[in-house]
């Protein structure tokens, strides 16, 4: 892998660069901590008698892994990218930086308090991806609000005529997540089966209306920037925005197929799960057509390979989600480890790879410091091979579990059938965690490490307005 590309630096204020660096540094801390937890959990399948204190027990750590990767790692990294991109595409410095810093404090405080309270056994009723107790959620919401406000204020003061498509996506993500969180936090209409309906709505929207929008928005900026050519089609991007916005909120009930939720409600979710192919395939096509004919640029970049894998998993993971929603397949795959494979294909293969690609693309331009080429290559291959092996292991394990149940065998037969693949998953987890350590080293090089070269500033005239 040769990385001899000249390092160009964005013409940014040092304060903007420091803010972006702080978002990525703290996000990286949560990535390391919560995936260490995930790795520990993966070893509890083959070794259930290992680390058996209440504070290291599966039932408590699982929520720390999911919430920490979602709201510590991915939310902070992608919010930081959204703020930085808003300023770049608006041609001005980040507006109201103090509130952006406040947002970062809130995010980290929420992740810290959430991790501690979950480990003490305090959670919001095992409701997946919203286990944090209410006041922790409120702290997190403040983070979302002030990050969103920073993006909106920056875009509002732009000197460019148009609002770039990236900002549509990221602003949408902040707005949707605020509404979603408020809907999900009010307890009065979440009693018994009512809560099941809200949970189906919440857990899917938290992924698809937050991370998907932030990641796609960041891709719409980073990809053309890295390739030095415009996005293939602005119109396809806008189509993706509106179809994702309208279809996605309807599909949540596909998490509760064959449950006592109304049958037509489940069917509606399945129908719109098929509808999701429109934004997914149009988005993928848009990115793929932008990259077409630039294989050599991809090969020479340390950021682009991550975006290529991220887009590939966006396509594969989301299409898989549509297929999984069909009743005939849900009857086998529901309740099995197959869904954990799916969630890693999407939250890791798609969201996390896009976050890495965007960080490798933008952070060196912000700070004027490069990551190590060899370390980037190792990070890429360990993570790519790791997550692929992870998804395959659990897809096989889940299929075997489902088939064992359908065959009418005793329950423990499904445990025995999946056991070898759980070892495979733990091995894959080791590779992924190794990749994260290497990534953390690169983040160090790109932020707080001493400067080793004098980068050139991008030869575009700087436009300034009073912030």
């Amino acid at each position: 892998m040769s990385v001899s590309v000249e390092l160009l630096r964005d013409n940014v204020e040092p304060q903007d660069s420091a803010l972006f660096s702080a978002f990525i540094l703290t996000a990286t801390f949560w990535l390391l901590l919560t995936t260490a937890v995930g790795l520990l959990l993966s070893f509890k399948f083959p070794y259930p008698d290992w680390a058996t204190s209440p504070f290291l027990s599966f039932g408590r750590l699982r929520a720390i892994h999911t919430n920490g990767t979602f709201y510590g790692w991915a939310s902070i990294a992608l919010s930081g990218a959204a703020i930085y991109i808003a300023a770049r595409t608006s041609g001005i410095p980040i507006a109201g930086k103090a509130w952006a810093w406040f947002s970062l404090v809130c995010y980290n405080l929420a992740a810290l308090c959430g991790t501690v309270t979950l480990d003490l056994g305090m959670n919001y009723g095992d409701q997946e991806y919203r286990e944090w107790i209410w006041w922790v959620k409120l702290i997190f919401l403040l983070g979302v609000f002030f990050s969103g406000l920073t993006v909106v204020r920056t875009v509002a003061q732009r000197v460019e005529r148009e609002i770039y498509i990236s900002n549509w996506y990221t602003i949408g993500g902040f707005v949707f997540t605020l509404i979603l969180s408020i809907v999900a936090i009010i307890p009065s209409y979440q009693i018994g089966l009512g809560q099941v309906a809200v949970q189906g709505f919440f857990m899917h929207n938290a992924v698809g209306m937050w991370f998907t929008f932030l990641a796609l928005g960041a891709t719409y900026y980073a990809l053309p920037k890295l390739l030095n050519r415009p996005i293939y089609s602005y119109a396809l991007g806008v189509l993706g925005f509106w179809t994702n916005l309208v279809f996605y909120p309807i599909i949540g009930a596909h998490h509760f197929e064959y449950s006592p939720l109304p049958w037509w409600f489940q069917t509606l979710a399945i129908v719109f799960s098929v509808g999701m192919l429109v934004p997914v395939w149009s988005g993928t096509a848009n990115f793929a057509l932008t990259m077409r004919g630039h294989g050599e640029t991809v090969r020479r970049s340390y950021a682009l390979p991550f975006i290529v894998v991220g887009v590939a998993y966006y396509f594969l993971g989301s299409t898989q989600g549509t297929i999984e929603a069909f009743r005939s397949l849900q009857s086998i795959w529901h309740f099995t480890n197959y869904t954990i494979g799916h969630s890693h294909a999407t939250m890791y293969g798609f969201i996390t790879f896009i976050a890495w690609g965007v960080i490798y693309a933008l952070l060196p331009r912000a700070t004027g410091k490069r990551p190590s080429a060899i370390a980037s290559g190792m990070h890429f291959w360990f993570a790519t091979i790791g997550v692929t092996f992870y998804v395959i292991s659990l897809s096989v394990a889940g299929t075997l579990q489902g088939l064992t149940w359908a065959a009418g065998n005793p329950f423990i037969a499904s445990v025995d059938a999946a056991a070898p693949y759980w070892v495979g998953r733990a091995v894959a987890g080791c590779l992924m965690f190794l990749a994260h350590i290497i990534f953390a080293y690169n983040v160090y090089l790109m932020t707080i490490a001493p400067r080793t070269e004098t980068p050139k500033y991008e030869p575009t005239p700087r436009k300034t307005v009073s912030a």
Partner: protein
Amino acid sequence: MNRNVWTIVVASAVVYGLLAVLMGVVPGIVLSNTSPTEGLQPYTPEEQRGRDIYVSEGCEYCHTQNVRPLKQDLVFGRPSIAGDYAYDTPELLGDHRNGPDLTNIGNRQPSQTWQYIHLWNPRAVVHDSIMPRYTWLFTVKPKADPNDVVIPLPAAFRPSHGAIVATRDAQDLVAYLESLKQVPLKTKASK
């Protein structure tokens, strides 16, 4: 494209807000008013406390409480119906079965002793089980008091000396598990 950022903010908020009401709030309100299945009893304070332990320890991440109307689920009981969950807040339907469904576990495994042994060490009763041990729900005493709930264990799974005594947490949790009994349906179709 649009030159005013607030148009994007307001337009996306209106569209999504509408969908959130239609797909989240309204179903929540309607289904929160589901009446209980005939004969279903609310939890006793002891069972409710046990349920809180169940939630606190994250049992739901491996055990569903949702019998689907599918052949492979009938081993767990009759298919769950809406009214079965009238007293279940937070809901614990779950979406993973690393362990079996517990909707009807009170009928399927009525032995409290089995439940205690299983919580102390699942592998004492199910050799290949991967369930974690919940040793912190028990205390090991040199000598048990007369009122203590002492857990009988095979020699291989017993500490070398002392008695294993269930704490109140363990007793409440087992009370909750024992309370998980499906109410038979009174319909013309039942055979």
